[in-house]
């Protein structure tokens, strides 16, 4: 009875096109934002913020990026790890070369750089589709990681090949990177930043760009015939997607881990983000968040769960079992609900609309 749209009449197309056309959704969203900004930092411990919320938000951003490419534009990519590495190393070079640049500008610039790289590796998508394209993106993955690993110009000639984020303030007095950075600063910055980026992504996918991406995804030939140029649609999807992934990579290196090497962005990372997108829901911004939460939480829960059952269990075995469960879950999700958690959420809402009357 609580979740009804009856009686809410839209008097303009603008209201009908809003992200949350139903009042209850808007209220729910406001509560969520309040909890995220006020509740979580007050209640969660430093440890929880650092190990769960920070990676969750960064992964959500990467998942949004991949979702734009794979979920909205239908171009399968296995190069996410490579593009994240791009963002991380671009940010490092920028931050060390221009110490006076503000961090947010560094992140955005490294995102732009990654967007260029992504568009370049997206060029083959004009001739090839599906699995073939997946193989082409593997080239990006392996080439980029090799490049960052091989040329120590990228790491400013550090012997270990590890880059460490220089300490920087996000607003005067609050360090976002380096040893003085507090978990709460990191978290609050990420909440604001990621929410803003997600809003922008949502705006893009419901407007002109999103429609041309989805048209290409659903039927590229028909899309071309109604005047969408596949070249621009696909390349813009690659560029926007890589921008998001690049920024996520920069955040990963700077805010989450603080120091990182190229090998942290191996192909496993690509799969990890792909799983978030599949489990969360292809073609859904909300799904990117749900998928990221799921994939970040699952290993922690499994780990603790297995340790609770058998405290002597080896970490290797835990990680193998984790692999198995991941794999099984992917298959399960594809069978039960190819549209992922986001679709389950929607079904839940539809049920709620009818509740307590079944029909």
């Amino acid at each position, binding site marked *: 009875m609580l979740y009804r749209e009856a009686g809410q009449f839209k008097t303009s197309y603008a209201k009908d096109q809003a992200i949350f056309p139903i009042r209850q959704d808007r209220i729910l969203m406001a509560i969520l934002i309040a909890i995220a900004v006020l509740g979580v930092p007050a209640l969660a411990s430093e440890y929880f913020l650092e190990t769960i919320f920070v990676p969750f938000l960064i992964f959500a951003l990467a998942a949004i990026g991949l979702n734009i490419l794979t979920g909205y534009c239908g171009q399968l990519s296995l190069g996410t790890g490579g593009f994240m590495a791009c963002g991380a190393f671009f940010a490092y070079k920028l931050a060390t070369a221009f110490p006076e640049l503000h961090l947010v500008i560094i992140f955005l610039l490294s995102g732009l750089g990654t967007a260029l790289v992504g568009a370049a590796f997206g060029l083959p998508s004009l001739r090839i589709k599906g699995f*073939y394209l997946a193989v082409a993106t593997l*080239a990006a993955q*392996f080439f980029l990681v090799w490049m960052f690993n091989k040329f120590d110009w990228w790491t400013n000639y550090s012997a270990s090949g590890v880059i460490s984020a220089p300490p920087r303030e996000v607003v005067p007095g609050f360090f976002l990177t380096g040893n003085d950075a507090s978990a709460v600063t990191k978290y609050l910055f990420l909440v604001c930043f990621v929410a803003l980026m997600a809003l922008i992504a949502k705006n893009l996918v419901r407007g002109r760009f999103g429609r041309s991406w989805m048209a290409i995804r659903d039927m590229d030939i028909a899309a071309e015939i109604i005047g969408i140029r596949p070249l621009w649609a696909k390349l813009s999807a690659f560029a926007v997607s890589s921008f998001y992934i690049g920024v996520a990579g920069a955040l990963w290196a700077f805010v989450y881990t603080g120091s990182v090497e190229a090998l942290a962005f191996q192909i496993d990372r690509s799969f990890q983000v792909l799983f978030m997108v*599949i489990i969360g829901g292809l073609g859904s911004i909300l799904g990117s968040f749900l998928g990221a939460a799921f994939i970040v939480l699952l290993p922690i829960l499994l780990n603790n769960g297995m340790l609770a059952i058998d405290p002597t269990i080896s970490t290797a075995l835990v990680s193998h079992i984790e692999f198995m469960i991941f794999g099984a879950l992917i298959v399960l999700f594809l069978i039960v609900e190819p549209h992922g958690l986001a679709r389950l959420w929607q079904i839940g809402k539809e049920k709620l609309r009818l509740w307590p009357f079944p029909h």
Partner: protein
Amino acid sequence: MNASAIRNIGGWAIGVPLVIALLGFAFQGLASFNSSFFFAWPYFIEVLIAGLLQGVMYSLVALGFVLIFKASGIFNFAQGSMVLFAALTMVGFIEMGLHWTIAFAITAVVMALVAVGIERLVLRPLVNQPHIILFMSTIGIFYFLDGFGQTLWGSDIKVLDIGIPKTPMFVGKGMFEGGLLINSFDLVAAFVGAALVIALAVFFHYTRIGRALRAVADDHQAAMSIGIPLKTIWVVVWTAAGVVALVAGIMWGSKAGVQFSLALIALKALPVLILGGFTSIPGAIVGGLIIGSSEQLAEVFLGPLFGGAIQDWFAYMLALVFLLFRPQGLFGEKIIERI
């Protein structure tokens, strides 16, 4: 054999040595400009042969992909983990004290069971889904088998030795000073690969089930409507791919030890498929040879230019460039789009 096939073969017979010779001259020229490069014809040939034999190993993995793709239109990303799983299982049985032939037989049965499981639990519920969904489900299988194999058998590097001789030998002493160095193990691998290809080709072209497989590859629903038992076909194909994976696993495992990286080496089979075409068994072989040899040559002769280890990505880049010019591969069927 018709005229065009003869022309094709003639083209290959002239083209391949020509390309190899041109590459050799190119490297020779490079070496004469830059003294940090070393070049000598016998060495070049040696690297080429080593690359070709490495290519055979790639082909072995690629064959499994082709089998499944031909029969079900599924791009089986899990082939690599099937290789690892098969090799791990076989080593496990050998470690229990069984003779390798018995271990081989038992492992083949295990792979058949895996095939049945995949058909029941993954393919059957996903029949008639878009290809991309099936592809992603095989990524799930990839992870599952990786985890499962290592949960069962542990993740230490294991030695798999079924008695293939690994003695280096010299051939062609008359042609070159000192002859060419070749590992006998690689030769055995090449023979096994050839035998496997011939067996599969016969299977596909001359048996009833082979014809049914080709019908299924074209259209699931149409094949079902004329009474081809899809489930049986799939189990057969996945079993065959499992056995191919087992053979590949034995070869790779004997060469480099059975370890997790096997599953990732198998990713190299992807560029092989791009070159050879997804549906062609000879394509998988030729593609493997091209990838193996060019990768080896690039690493040895061009690698120093880029700081080495370009093997990591060279094959993928080659495939990518190739795709731009011939998206259907060397032997694949050209797709005419209709609307």
